[in-house]
């Protein structure tokens, strides 16, 4: 049953991905200017420009170029980057680990901080601790990621000299050190989203009759919150987290640029600046696939957490 549902959901994602390829291809095609001329520079002769355009099929009608692009994708070929002088797929694979680790790290930080904060706020609803947490959460939601990243560098990394401000390091332990501040910057809004969602959900659960029953059975406050409130309150948070994963991934573009993390986000920025459209198209597609997969996973997880939910 789960395999069938997963397969159906994956199949439903295909039109979304085709739409993404169409949108990114159309956008890059609409950008004014001759890509071959940009790659060769202003001192290239017209013959050289024409030769490069022909070599990359840029002299073909846009719909022909798009058709060839889809055909290449069907064979797992993302194209070739003349700027990087390597296959786009290879370039993305080389940079994917840093981005995936950054996203995972930020998720762990967000859940690790957001869940206790949300539960603490719900448990102390209406009291000063709740107000303080809600104020911090609203502040966190309001701060743009790039600004948070710069502030972390200026007021945490530089004075303490405890955290590297740029790069990725060598080895897993070094990666964790290098990515701590980028992950924290990325996680801040996510923490706020989880905290708010969990607080609201937990407050709702606390009104449920089964919670009253559990309380009457003599469960301690801690046991009650962990066993009955948290588990049931997490359900809507899973949905919220799934939806916000797209935001988290897009945030890597900014954070990786500020912290010079050699991931897919930084590659995307560089490729846009270098007019390396093959890489831009490949990266946007990979990001889209990631978002689709995360949302499918959230749906399935939701069903796993709540047997009443049936995913069709």
């Amino acid at each position: 049953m789960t395999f069938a549902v997963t397969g159906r959901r994956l199949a439903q994602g295909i039109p979304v991905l085709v739409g993404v390829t169409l949108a990114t291809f159309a956008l890059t095609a609409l950008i004014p200017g001759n890509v071959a001329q940009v790659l060769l520079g202003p001192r290239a002769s017209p013959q050289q420009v024409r030769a490069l355009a022909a070599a990359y099929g840029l002299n073909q009608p846009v719909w022909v170029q798009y058709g060839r692009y889809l055909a290449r994708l069907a064979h797992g070929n993302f194209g070739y980057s003349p700027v990087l002088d390597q296959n786009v797929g290879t370039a993305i694979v080389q940079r994917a680990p840093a981005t995936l680790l950054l996203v995972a790290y930020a998720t762990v930080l967000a859940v690790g901080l957001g869940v206790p904060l949300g539960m603490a706020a719900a448990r102390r609803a209406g009291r000063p601790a709740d107000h303080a947490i809600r104020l911090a959460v609203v502040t966190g939601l309001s701060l743009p990621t790039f600004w948070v990243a710069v502030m972390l560098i200026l007021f945490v990394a530089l004075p303490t000299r405890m955290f590297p401000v740029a790069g990725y390091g060598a080895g897993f332990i070094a990666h964790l050190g290098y990515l701590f501040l980028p992950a924290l910057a990325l996680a801040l809004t996510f923490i706020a989203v989880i905290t708010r969602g969990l607080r609201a959900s937990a407050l709702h659960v606390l009104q449920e009759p089964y919670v009253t029953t559990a309380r009457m059975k003599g469960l301690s406050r801690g046991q009650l919150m962990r066993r009955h409130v948290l588990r049931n309150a997490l359900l809507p948070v899973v949905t919220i987290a799934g939806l916000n994963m797209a935001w988290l991934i897009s945030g890597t573009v900014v954070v990786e640029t500020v912290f010079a993390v050699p991931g897919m986000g930084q590659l995307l920025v560089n490729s846009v600046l270098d007019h390396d459209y093959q890489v831009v198209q490949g990266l946007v597609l990979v990001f889209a696939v990631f978002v689709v997969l995360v949302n499918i996973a959230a749906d399935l997880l939701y069903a796993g957490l709540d047997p009443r939910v049936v995913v069709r």
Partner: protein
Amino acid sequence: MRISIRFLAAAAVVSLAGAVAACSSAATTGIGSARSSGQPVHGGTLKVALYSDIQNINPITSEDPVAQLMWGNWWQYAVYATPNGQSLQPMLATSWSITSDYKTYTFQIRPGVEFSDGEALTAEDVAWSWEYMISQSAAQMNFLAPRIASITAPGPLTVRVVFKTPYPYFLDDVSGFEAVIMPKALVEKEGWSAYLRHPVGTGPFVLTSWQRGASIQVTRNPHYWQHGLPYLDGITYLVMPDDQSRITAVESGTADVATQIPYNEVRSLSSRPGMYVANFPQSIDWNMVLNTLDPPLNNVLVRRAISLAINRAELEQAALYGNGVAAKTFLPDPAGLTFADPALNLYPYDPAKAKALLAQAGVRNLHLTLLLEPGQAEAATGAVIQADLAAVGIHLSLDTVSETSWLDDLTSQKFQLTTSFWQDISPNPINQIQYTMVPDYAAGCCKAFWSSLNDPAVIAAAQAATTAVGSHAALQPIFNKAQIAEAQAADPLPLYNDVTTPTLMSSRVHGFAENPYDGAYFAGIWLAS
């Protein structure tokens, strides 16, 4: 000429580590070098924050100034430009002689030099390397192919180059472009592509790892020919495209050097403790191009009026924050090898005369549009020129477009005015003169810097300069005539010269030096403990 295909931002490398010892006084004092005080210390790994990764390591096709800078770690030239860019000195060639007709060059190759794989450098390697690069149709040096009669190695350490016609710039050419010296036997054995994956040269370091988009690692060449050098065990280059990230990397100790610091940061960074800003010379000439295809810019009086209306000193301050110089000739500073003669002072500021010229031309209520690329310097340039032209009665609209649109409009000549630049990639001056003054410079490119100016007097002056033969002193008056002819035609209009590359360094870094053609001297760098 093949040089024409090179992107304006390209820069030549003259590398060379060993140069530092050969001319330590030049590398440790004055323009072009970082501070160097105290006793050099051996050991340590320098961390350099680079503004971009190597995009193309292949010297035949690379348009990439970062790659050209990085070559200096592992490749060297026969001749190199000094850090101030004003003279050429020996590197892998210890001496040379040139016949009085400038047709035969004979080089003596340095004995005892080994490649990083331990093989000895021979004259055969040098002759083959030059021949190989010049024969590649995509290479910059290919423009020499029709001029050269032969390149031979008549002795184990002697190379002879014979030209069909007199040619006085071969030393300039082999100090830059792709004239790196490679091991003939190894390249022929491995093949070009395989060789480029693990390039072997005579430079002070060896490329040991390259994580694309992230880092490049070079380590000490155990066979390096200069005794006691390099000082460093290695250099790690960290790719950090964001300006602020590079700066904070040095501030936090993550990196020791940050390249390409924005001009507007130089002053504040210069006063920070524990670091300093080294200004390496570069040779870039920013111009305003006037499209002469349509009136009134086809009228030389209007073009001269526009030139006289621009306050270039004010413009330089706005665009480069005092890190450049107002243009006085279209050839970039630094003077010396390039024949630039700022004393000519060909672009004065005289708004009264500008008004008189406009009246003489019968032009009133002139409306023009200046096409600009995005960028701080471009925006400042546009604003100042707009105000200057308004003062003489010319209404200027600014049209800022994306780089791709700008390039499209430039090459299809859909503009009235625009800005662009030239960067010297070797001391050889004839390429800039031809690109700027001759409409059909190469294979349909580039319409006299895209101005479409076709002035017989300008073309004749360019031809005279580019075909003249003689000593530098004898050639200078001929090149001055070319500079004057270009100024009288008033298109393109030089604005300012970008003469320094600000580089942020930790106080620990000593002996870092670069010349104006992006050649860096890596062997002499050392880190204070």
